[in-house]
């Protein structure tokens, strides 16, 4: 069972990094205490993982045939990639890291021609459409909810609504995160037959929750401050649009990046308000993350498999 440690580590890193996307705004603005935010994140991540996490676990676990050893190498490669890129302060997606690593394993095992091109195309298209989809959802939410919220005249009601909204969207965001990203942590081991899907969902969910509780403060504050530059309604729309996007991808069984969904949602707010919310540097970093994360993870898994296998 110690094989699972690499998956647990990946889940911990994921929780530490991505809790910021759901409660960053609430915490930095002081509306939600850090303690409450991480406890809610942990609860809803586990709930999302256990309830719907198996939908994406299938995609990661059965992308290619995995043995216990290759599952370990894939998860380890993804974990190293995530750690390395976080150290280099580069944007990183665990979904892209684990799938990149699994593709690397598949290339070594079955060659280029053996790659499941249908599944791969679906996944890559989903990655491209994550920020785009989030942008569309964010734009529609901003216009639709904005119309309704503008009808609320009182500052007191507006403030209550925003506060409740931040709590509810944060919980939904955590649920979506758990349901979608839990596959990245233990999916490969489910594919290798070490554990059952529901066990994978539970172990992965708990490890993400522990990551959020123990190590998310720093990222939460930096991401939260960036999103908090938006007005509270826009920040709420960003979190909600990101959560809806990620949740929709859970339904089609593809793990995607919550951070990239947030970037798309923020860009759409800029478009709706006629202001620039995303600069070229940020876009460049997203593109860099898209390309470098799966490439690095794939290269690592190939390297590890060839040298150890």
């Amino acid at each position, binding site marked *: 069972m110690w094989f699972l440690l690499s998956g647990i580590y990946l889940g911990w890193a994921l929780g530490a990094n991505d809790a910021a996307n759901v409660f960053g705004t609430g915490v930095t603005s*002081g509306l939600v205490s850090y303690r409450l935010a991480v406890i809610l994140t942990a609860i809803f991540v586990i709930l999302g993982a256990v309830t719907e996490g198996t939908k994406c676990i299938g995609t990661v676990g059965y992308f290619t045939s995995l043995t216990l050893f290759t599952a370990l190498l894939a998860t380890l490669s993804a974990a190293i990639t995530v750690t390395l890129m976080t150290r280099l302060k580069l944007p990183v997606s665990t979904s892209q890291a684990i799938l990149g690593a699994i593709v690397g394993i598949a290339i070594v095992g079955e060659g280029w021609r053996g790659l499941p091109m249908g599944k791969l195309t679906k996944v890559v298209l989903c990655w491209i459409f994550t920020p785009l989809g989030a942008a569309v959802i964010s734009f529609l939410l901003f216009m639709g909810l904005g119309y309704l919220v503008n009808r609320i005249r009182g500052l*007191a009601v507006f*403030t209550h609504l925003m506060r409740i909204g931040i709590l509810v969207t944060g919980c939904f965001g955590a649920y979506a995160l758990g349901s979608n990203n839990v596959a990245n942590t233990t999916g490969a081991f489910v594919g290798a037959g070490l554990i059952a899907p529901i066990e994978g969902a539970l172990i992965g969910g708990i490890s993400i929750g522990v990551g959020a509780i123990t190590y998310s403060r720093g990222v939460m504050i930096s991401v939260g401050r960036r999103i908090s530059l938006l007005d509270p309604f826009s920040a709420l729309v960003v979190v909600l649009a990101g959560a809806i996007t990620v949740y929709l991808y859970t339904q089609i069984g593809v793990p995607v990046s919550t951070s990239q969904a947030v970037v798309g949602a923020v860009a759409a707010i800029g478009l709706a308000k006629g202001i620039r919310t995303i600069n070229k540097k940020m876009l460049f970093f997203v593109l860099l993350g898209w390309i470098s994360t799966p490439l690095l993870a794939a290269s690592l898994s190939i390297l590890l498999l060839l040298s150890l296998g």
Partner: protein
Amino acid sequence: MLFKKKGKVQKLIQEQINLVAQGLGFLKEAVELYLEGDKEECELKTRVVEQMETKADEAKREAEKTLYEGMYLPLFREDFLDLMELIDDVADEAERIVDFLSIENPEIPSPWNEKMREIVEKGILAFNLFRESFMLLREDTQKAFSHAYKVKEVEKEVDRLQDGLNREIFQSNLQLAHKIQLRDLVIRMGFISDLSENAADKISMISIKRRI
């Protein structure tokens, strides 16, 4: 718990405003007594104005403390802190006017009494309009915005009154030092409406920020 704290901030700001409004009421009485020549009673009212300023200051400090604990949307937090400072400025100015009368004891020729009264009354009217706009903010930000605009109109009237009175002062045969002293008093009295306008501008700003 969260909602209770936010309600507490609003209550404390409202309390600060009410105390300043009460202080302005006593300022009006003090000026009236001074103009009637009852300087002893005016001194007593001066002390009351000072006490009201201290109480308003305490309410402000309490509200600031609660606000710093982070129970407000960050978008409005700074505005509310600024607003409390602006309300405090009005209370300070009321205190300065009664102190001016108490320390400098200026001789005010009776033909100007009515205009002095009017400037003080209009200043208080400006503050009361601001107070109403603050109360509207909770229920309807658009109404608060329109109401805050009324303060501007009153402030313009006060400006006109001030200019007219100062012109009369400087056209009179009084000593230059006396003219300057009276001008200073008139300007001080006019500050009440100026500062109320600043506070009302903050209400307008909060209302605009609330729009999506």
